[in-house]
């Protein structure tokens, strides 16, 4: 069931209990987790935090903790699958789910006792009504009891009359049931066909903090990072992003006004969040402007930087702005003040000339101390790189901890480490995109485009992780749409496969919807993968919470793809 009053129905319930927090491995979940932890510290709610990377992890974690905990809080996992069926809990276990995955499974919606969804109902859910998908047992049993009552001891004459009437009614009932079931299948198919994402979990938990009047700037910053993660990884539409930014902007103003009232302004060490209409250049303030332009998908795809022509255009662009190459290639912080002063406006003006109308994006930045200034997207990239780090000796648990740590302001070295890793990742993505486009590795299979990263590809280990592979896939599709002349291909979705586990000989397969300005980001590959795997009995593992990401045995790749082609044609 949906929770309407998050304070009464969730917080007041858990505040006197011990809680098990099961948190998915994505940035939004980490941010939501940080906010919730801060609230729990305030009220001394004892909890245990367990990171989970997929359904198997979730199941294991639940089994291990079900004896000790009655309340489970699931963050960014659990909404899109029949949870009670999967976990088979005792009757007194309660699950509070704060998950961005949609569509929410209908059983989760209509369970009144054990599943509580911390999801706003106006979030464009489109849940089918109860009567369309559930039927009371009595009506269905009516068919059977009709048969049984025929064996009653009634005079034969009467019985015959009853029989005829009875038979007619039974046939009618059966027909109605079949019709109802057919409509039900159709409704459920429509409802569950497309996967998409709802409001950021961090924002939902921040709202809880706000309702409790326990919200702090740190929590607001985490909410901002959670939303920005959804934007960086292309999980929500532009409209939704802008709407949510406006919501957060109100909170930022509220927090900032608190400080302006005092006679003494805040110490420089205090945290200040500011609204920024900043450049869409990844990590540019922690890198050189040139490198940032080369490795950000927006600029790279618009200039087509994988070609010589594109490189020349970039040089022209820089010259047009009057930015000397020497300046642009050095660390951003070392650039001349005169150059940095109106940089954003200058770049925006020139970008308009080169066809990049949206080089600036609404976002937020944070200042604390003299040196420390970060944009929300910087933190998202850094945390994502730490979370999916492929350095040796890093287990997923270790990475989770490191990523969680880097969100705290006291762990700046960790954050800077993350930024360095993020730079490497962005460069790897850029190079892979360039080589894929130049060697025509993206092939049209009919209903979709397909790209397979061979084992020997440089940095291919980075792409065995879902978030990094998603970023690569999105950049690749954008770049392909820009570089191809085939009009039909521009409207196709893209499936990418990369080696996942060399020993187990599996690949990770991911599908994204077609690229368009007005894309609603709804992804149908989840169901498509399931059906294709079933029909070919391919050995797949649908472990990830995003159903459009699966693991597949290398040998089954070809038949799986063929099944997909047939299915989607």
């Amino acid at each position, binding site marked *: 069931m949906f929770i309407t009053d998050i304070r009464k129905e969730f917080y007041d319930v858990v505040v006197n209990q*011990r809680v098990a927090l099961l948190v998915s491995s994505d940035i939004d979940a980490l941010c939501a987790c940080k906010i919730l*932890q*801060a609230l*729990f*510290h305030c009220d*001394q*709610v*004892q*909890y*245990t*935090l*367990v*990171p989970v990377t997929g359904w198997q992890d979730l199941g294991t974690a639940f089994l*291990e*903790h079900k*004896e*000790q905990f009655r309340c489970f809080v699931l963050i960014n996992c659990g909404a899109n699958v029949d949870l009670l069926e999967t976990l088979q809990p005792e009757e007194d276990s309660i699950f509070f789910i704060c998950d961005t995955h949609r569509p929410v499974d209908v059983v989760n919606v209509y369970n009144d006792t054990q599943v509580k969804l911390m999801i706003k109902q106006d979030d464009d859910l489109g849940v089918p009504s109860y009567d369309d998908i559930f039927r009371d047992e009595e009506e269905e049993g009516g068919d059977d009891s009709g048969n049984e009552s025929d064996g009653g001891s009634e005079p034969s004459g009467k019985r015959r009359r009853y029989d005829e009437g009875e038979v007619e009614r039974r046939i009618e009932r059966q027909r109605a049931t079949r019709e109802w079931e057919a409509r039900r299948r159709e409704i459920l198919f429509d409802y569950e066909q497309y996967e998409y994402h709802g409001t950021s979990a961090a924002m939902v938990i921040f709202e809880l903090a706000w309702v409790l009047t326990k919200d702090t700037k740190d929590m607001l910053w985490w909410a901002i990072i959670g939303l920005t993660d959804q934007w960086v990884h292309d999980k929500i539409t532009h409209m939704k992003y802008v709407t949510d930014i406006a919501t957060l902007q109100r909170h930022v103003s509220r927090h900032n006004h608190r400080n302006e009232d005092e006679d003494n302004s805040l110490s420089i060490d205090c945290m200040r969040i500011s609204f920024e209409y900043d450049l869409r250049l990844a990590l540019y303030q922690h890198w050189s402007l040139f490198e940032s332009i080369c490795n950000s998908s927006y600029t790279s795809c618009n200039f087509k930087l994988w070609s010589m022509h594109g490189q020349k255009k970039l040089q022209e662009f820089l010259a047009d702005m009057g930015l000397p190459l020497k300046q642009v290639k050095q660390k951003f912080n070392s650039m001349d003040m005169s150059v940095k002063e109106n940089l954003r406006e200058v770049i925006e003006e020139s970008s308009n000339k080169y066809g990049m109308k949206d080089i600036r994006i609404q976002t937020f930045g944070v200042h604390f101390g003299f040196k420390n200034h970060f944009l929300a997207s910087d933190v998202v990239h850094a945390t994502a790189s730490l979370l999916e780090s492929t350095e040796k000796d890093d*287990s997923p*648990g*270790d990475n*989770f*901890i490191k990523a969680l740590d880097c969100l*705290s302001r*006291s762990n700046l070295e960790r954050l800077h480490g993350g930024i360095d890793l993020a730079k490497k990742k962005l460069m790897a993505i850029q190079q892979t995109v360039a080589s894929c486009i130049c060697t025509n590795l993206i092939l049209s299979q009919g209903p979709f485009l397909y790209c397979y990263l061979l084992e020997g590809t440089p940095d291919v280990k980075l792409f065995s992780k879902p978030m990094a592979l998603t970023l690569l896939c999105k950049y690749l599709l954008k770049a392909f749409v820009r570089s191809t002349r085939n009009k039909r291909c521009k409207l196709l979705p893209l499936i990418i496969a990369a080696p996942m586990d060399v020993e187990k000989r599996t690949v990770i397969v991911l599908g994204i919807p077609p690229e368009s300005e007005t894309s609603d980001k709804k992804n149908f590959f989840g169901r498509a993968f399931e059906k294709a795997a079933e029909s070919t009995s391919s050995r797949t593992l649908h472990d990830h919470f995003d159903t459009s990401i699966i693991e597949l045995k290398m040998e089954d790749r070809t038949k799986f793809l063929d099944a997909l082609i047939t299915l989607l044609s």
Partner: protein
Amino acid sequence: PTLCLYSVTTTNEAKSEGKSELIPTIKFRHCCLLRNQRCIAAYLYVSFFQRQETNWTEDGRVMLEWFNQYKKSLATFMRSLGGEEGLDITQDMKPPKSLYIEVRCLKDHGEFEIDDGTIILLKKNSQHFLPRWKCEQLIRQGVLEHIMS
């Protein structure tokens, strides 16, 4: 000891006969006493740790015996404080800031029982928010790490 005796007699004199001129003397002797106390404490502290380093390897038996005696007298002392249950002075080596602390599990430790009977599973990389006094032991053993955010 003699200094102490002098101090006491002088204090009594000062109190009973109102000889306020003696007060500086009292104060001075008090300072001396305190200083002696500090010196003795420092000496014991240093000698204990020096001996711990040198004698531990050479004559372990002696140190072990001493340590057992120390443990016994510490236990008796602790029991004598704080009413019936005694007071565990080995807890809270530094002044505690909060009742509950956040800890991270550094290695698999299995099940751990806390005061109200509930059991926590300490698995590597899990984080918990628990009462401070239950965690101190495990923090010292290196199983848990205190997280300060």
